[in-house]
């Protein structure tokens, strides 16, 4: 299966999103056996709040249909980058869809783009990069954490994306990227992106773009300073985006009626306040939402020796 090339029917080897509710959905690998905690292979059963089931039962089901569980039901959904980002196993802090979207958009990526990413992390952004550059581009993604690189490589393979991605275990600060083709874009999610700027200069094509994602403003300050000092980056800009997921609800407010009819008024006695119900539909923001994820900085690479 492939995250990108959709198939209407679930096959063995697919990754399926089991959707119980908005707060409750999981990626499931459709395999006969899975590794348990002790590293042994056991039958692949999946446990939900509505009971457990044999994962192989999913085979042959149609994506987007109901799947019956012992004490309820769920929907089986085809994976997308967005569903994956919401459900993937966290090996690191991950980047979420609002930031991912802005990064890919701001880098002007399209099929055919050559993209370099460091670090790979949990691969949340990598999936979206691959989807965008497919089928004629390529993602080179690096992580200095060997196990994470291995896990990501394995995931891309399972998700049918391996033709468009190369995963490297590499410390890009000391070793650079070592990608042969000049890249259209470099993305950095590293604690010290400014230390990688010289490598970025060697890897980007003229007019190519750099994007960095940093949670702290000091990181942004140092990165922007390094970019300016290099003398080869223009259109440097820093942005921040926060998404708010609202709910739609009805509200009923009591409306007080201060009028008295003649009899009441004439009686000279206290009467209770009449109340009416006033109902309206309204958009309710969540009680809490992301206040900050990271600063996204873009810069365009224009080397000193200009072409003509």
């Amino acid at each position: 299966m492939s995250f990108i090339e959709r198939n209407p029917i679930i096959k063995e080897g697919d990754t399926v999103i089991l959707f119980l509710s908005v707060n409750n959905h999981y990626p499931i690998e459709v395999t006969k056996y899975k590794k348990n905690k002790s590293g042994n292979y056991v039958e692949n059963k999946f446990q939900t709040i509505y009971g457990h089931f044999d994962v192989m039962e999913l085979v042959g089901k149609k994506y987007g249909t109901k799947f019956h569980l012992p004490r309820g039901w769920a929907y089986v959904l085809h994976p997308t980058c967005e569903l994956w980002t919401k459900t993937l196993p966290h090996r690191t802090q991950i980047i979420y869809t609002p930031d991912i979207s802005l990064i890919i958009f701001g880098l002007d990526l399209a099929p055919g783009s050559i993209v370099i990413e460091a670090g790979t992390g949990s691969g949340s952004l990598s999936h979206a990069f691959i989807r965008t550059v497919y089928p004629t581009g390529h993602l080179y993604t690096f992580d200095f954490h060997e196990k994470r690189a291995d896990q990501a490589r394995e995931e891309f393979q399972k998700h049918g994306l391996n033709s468009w991605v190369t995963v490297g275990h590499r410390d890009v600060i000391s070793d650079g990227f070592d990608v042969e083709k000049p890249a259209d874009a470099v993305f950095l999610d590293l604690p010290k992106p400014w230390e990688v700027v010289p490598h970025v200069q060697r890897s980007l094509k003229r007019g190519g773009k750099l994007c960095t994602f940093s949670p702290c403003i000091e990181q942004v300050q140092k990165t922007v300073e390094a970019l300016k000092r290099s003398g080869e980056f223009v259109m440097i800009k820093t942005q921040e985006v926060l998404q708010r997921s609202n709910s739609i609800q009805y509200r009923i407010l009591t409306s007080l009626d201060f009028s008295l009819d003649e009899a009441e008024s004439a009686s000279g006695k206290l009467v209770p306040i009449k109340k009416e119900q006033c109902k309206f539909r309204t958009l309710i923001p969540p009680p809490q939402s992301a206040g900050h994820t990271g600063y996204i900085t873009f810069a365009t690479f224009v080397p000193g020796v200009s072409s003509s």
Partner: protein
Amino acid sequence: MASETNSNEDLVTSSSATAAVGGLGADEDGICDGKYVVVERGDQQRIILFKSNQTITFGKGATQQDILLKGASGTGFLNAFKASPAPPEVIASHKPSSNNSKPWKKSKVRPQNLFVLERSTDPIVKSINEFYQLPDTISSGVDNRNIHDDNTSQAMKKHDIESLRGQGVSSKEILETIITSSKSFNQKTEFAQEKYLKKKEKIYGDVLVFRKPSISILSDYYFKRDPVKVLGLRPDTLSQLLSYANIHAHGKYLIFENCCGLIVAAVLNRLGGHGAALHCHIGSNPQRQALVCMNFTDEDLKPMMNLDMLYLLRGNVEKMEVGPDDIAAVAVVEAESSEEPKTKKQKLECDAGSDSDDEKNGKDSYNEQSEVEEETTFVTSRRLMASNNKEDNETSVAYFNETEFDGLIICGKEHPLTLLQRLLPRLALSTPFVIYCQYPEPLMDCYVWVKEKGIGINVHLVDNWFRNIQVETERTHPEINMSPSGGYLLYGTYIVGT
């Protein structure tokens, strides 16, 4: 989160404490029985009615601390205290307050959980900071390339911590043990270490600071812990409400609110004993949960008057006579109005997907809420004053009818339009009205009415975006959680109609 042995039941029946509140007195700026105080431990904050013979509880399970308040009694605010395991003689002598109507819950307060407060000899800043600093022995990893998330990186188990606690090991020592026993801690980046520390602090921190309640603290406290009770009114929105209503000493203000008494408290605070705050409400028991926490003196409370809206039904109210029958009518109204706001139950069939956030983020606050629920119930029943009676209301009605007010505030769970229609004409010309609502729709109704009547000018419907920023060396960034909505304000100036 945490349960409190300084619990509601204890205090509801504690008539001596009630008396103490009335006569605040002695040490204006110190901590004493019968005064409301703010207790802070790290990020955790409580507002309690101080009683030196009771305990306050932080943490739960293995790390629960039931801290005897006695050590803080008689001291000034803003000092640091350390919670230390109670010595045997204190454990032996510690008994529940004699006023306690409920039997002592042995299951809850175990001897090893009992702590006493010791005034720190260090300056407060040092005491607080010390806790947050990493021991020098711990080096920061440059990055996290070698960390493996195999669930074995934390060697200390819950059981081990509990056992150390049982041996009387101090929180700080426990923390250091946790840190040094963590395989991955030394390899984490400083940023990650800091997050780790903050999390741990929540469980093991034991530096307590007492603060004097203020409107800004109360507003923040209620908004964070029980936003439903304060109708989603965020502190920054309250701050603007007070500005746009032009609240100042010697002003006479008309206020409709059922927002825990927070608005009335804020206005009284800004009046400083001069002027008038006529609190309109429904029923004979106005909300005062937040108001009582301010430890207001009689002088501070002088401007406050109360008026049951029942007395403002149109008709010949001025010369009405109230017979015994009417009291029943009032009682009916009151019973109705004391219903909880239905907001929680109003979630309907088309509750959107954003629930994910609700649930994810709501977990903590939900637990906190239930805690507050108890607290506020307790406060409600401990009235600052008695319910306002017929005479009070008649005085208030007379005052209402003869006064040209300097400003009007409406901040209630009822639809504001009819309230605005009833109250706005009592303003003096060229004075402000401000209406708060959690939703924009009712304010739009008010806006349209005001504009149709031509009796308001400079009318604005505003909302705010508000965020806290963490400023730390090399780690400055906005806080990762924020409240995306703080409610809406409609404000304007009352003018002669066209």
